[in-house]
């Protein structure tokens, strides 16, 4: 049998993100699904020593030890910070504990990556960002932002290949909530927000990253299974011309895994992207892309993770975070960038609660930590 092609070996530019340039002490607090995944990934990184794990629940700590993690386990965050002195901490606690845990970790001088930042109002994130001050690494876990295909699309958008944007349509769907009990399960984990924050945040973050934050937007939401919204639609305009429309749902059948689709109409052509592939259809050759259709699948885009845990994204985001904590460059999901998207999320909620009225994103009033931002016109 003759094998004439071997792209697995010959593919040019096969490279992965750089792991930390110096030894780094890392820890994970919160040992649920995401926390265990972070702990597993951190255990595989060169130059990273997982020095501690922690969770208030004894069963969670036992499960983590049972998985094989040899790091010292703590029930209390302060004890973990005091005894293990991690330089980088991944916070994966329930939603309602997150802000306080991150604040204490920042006080102790650790770089922090938080899981589930979307559940927090922008005002809470702004407080954390202020507390972090200059030079402290604070990032958020948003795996979609590190997904190789969507990372490639961000690069295309930033390169100007598409020219002037005319219209963007986007959606993110997952089959997750089909009963009040399933919605309550989110609430029991401390969540007070629904699909916009949990499923939509990663999409909104991508849109804001690619096209900038809007000045004004409007949104509508529907509640099917409880007090939290199950489906939502939002729109805004770019520079008063191009229109961005998106919809999110966690109650659509047929999406066992989250499925994201972004379709961009621009003067130079059209771009369609999903988790599977990116398809670029250009009227004429631009930048590095020829005229006509260029299709890039998952195997064609870089970077590639060196450890697979439910895909590439988890490894890529953790590597970017610890590299930043060790003095490397900022990751795309740094808190300052996520805060912009969080303000958009707050405005989407404000608009949805006012029945779809336009809301200015920039005029949100932050009343203080823990309280939702309120747009002036809705507050009156």
């Amino acid at each position: 049998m003759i094998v004439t092609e071997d792209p697995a070996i010959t593919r040019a530019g096969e490279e992965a993100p750089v792991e930390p340039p110096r030894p780094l002490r890392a820890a994970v607090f919160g040992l649920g699904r995401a926390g265990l995944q972070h702990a597993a990934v951190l255990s595989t990184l060169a130059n990273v020593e997982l020095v501690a794990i922690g969770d208030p629940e004894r069963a969670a700590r036992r499960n983590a030890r049972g998985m094989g993690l040899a790091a010292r386990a703590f029930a209390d965050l302060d004890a973990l910070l005091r005894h293990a002195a991690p330089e980088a901490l991944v916070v994966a606690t329930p939603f309602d504990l997150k802000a306080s845990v991150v604040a204490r970790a920042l006080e102790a001088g650790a770089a922090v990556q938080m899981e589930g930042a979307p559940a927090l109002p922008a005002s809470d994130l702004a407080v954390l960002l202020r507390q972090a001050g200059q030079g402290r690494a604070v990032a958020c876990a948003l795996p979609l932002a590190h997904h190789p295909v969507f990372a490639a699309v961000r690069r295309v958008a930033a390169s100007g290949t598409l020219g002037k944007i005319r219209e963007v349509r986007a959606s993110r769907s997952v089959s997750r909530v089909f009963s009040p009990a399933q919605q309550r399960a989110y609430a029991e984990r401390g969540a007070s927000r629904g699909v916009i924050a949990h499923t939509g945040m990663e999409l909104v973050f991508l849109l804001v990253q690619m096209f900038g934050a809007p000045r004004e937007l409007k949104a509508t939401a529907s509640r099917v299974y409880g007090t939290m919204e199950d489906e939502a639609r939002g729109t805004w305009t770019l520079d008063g011309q191009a229109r961005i429309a998106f919809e999110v749902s966690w109650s659509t059948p047929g999406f066992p895994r989250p499925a994201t689709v972004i379709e961009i109409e621009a003067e130079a052509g059209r771009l369609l992207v999903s988790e599977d592939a990116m398809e670029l259809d250009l009227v004429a050759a631009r930048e590095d892309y020829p005229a006509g259709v260029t299709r890039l699948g998952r195997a064609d885009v870089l970077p590639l993770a060196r450890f697979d845990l439910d895909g590439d994204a988890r490894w890529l985001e953790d590597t970017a975070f610890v590299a930043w904590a060790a003095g490397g460059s900022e990751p795309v999901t740094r808190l300052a960038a996520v805060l912009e998207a969080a303000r958009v999320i707050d405005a989407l909620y404000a608009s949805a609660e006012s029945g779809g009225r336009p809301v200015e994103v920039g005029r949100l009033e932050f009343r203080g930590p823990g309280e939702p931002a309120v747009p002036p016109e809705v507050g009156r």
Partner: protein
Amino acid sequence: MSRREPPPRVLLGTRSLHGLSLATRDRILGVADRYREPEALAVTLSRALDAGAEGVLASPTPLLADTRAILRRPVPIHVVVPSLTEPERLELEPGVEPVLRRRLARSNPAGVRTAYARFTRPATLYGGDWSVRLPVLIESELAGMRTRDVRGIVLDAWLADCALAAGNRKLFETFIRFARSRFRAAAGIETHNLGLLVARLRAWDLAPDYAVAPVNACGLGMKPSPSEALAALGESPVPVLAKELCAGGATFESGAAFARAHGATGLVADVCELEDAGCELKAVG
């Protein structure tokens, strides 16, 4: 395999029916729809066995049980444990206890073996210890199956890769010993990190009967990098069954040829990669 059979050269895989595949979402949904009824899967399974497949790599789901009941012929099974739906895979924290809690809450934990395993490895003493409690999980997963049909037990990558990352040698050792001694079956390990698995097994001096890992010309799912994974495949002292042969767009025949040319001992031909299982498996058998 105290039956100590050589590792299978071709297995029919049904993992994509649970959403576990690098195929596109449309393809996975289409296949799930096609095999919604056990009759459809029974036809494909029968053709695959006639064409030389030595068994099926599958989780012990109701669909598989219904399919076997329809076939009325022995179907050698390489059982992937734990059996997880896609939402469970995405929601449960990795571990033995979370899965066991769901299983025991849902089904009658009858079965003398399951009860015995729970009695000798109680959660009150060993809760959270993956290596001690794994046999309880395996017993509960296989409770409804005839032991003689179980040719292999394969540890799902959902558990295996976490334990691998954490360096949990004891879990793999326990698993291999238990699968062989209790079920007289082959002990297989599914992984999406072949390079690390081969390196760790060598360092730990452990030898499961086979590993199951993605191998394809596009390098999808091949870690730590496609070239390093191929090197590990070539040097692996443990037989490797290649899966995800068509990932990235290869045809089944070329994917199979690629895997074999790089040292794969066997192939896992998933139902989502086959149009006509009989013809295609005969061609690579």
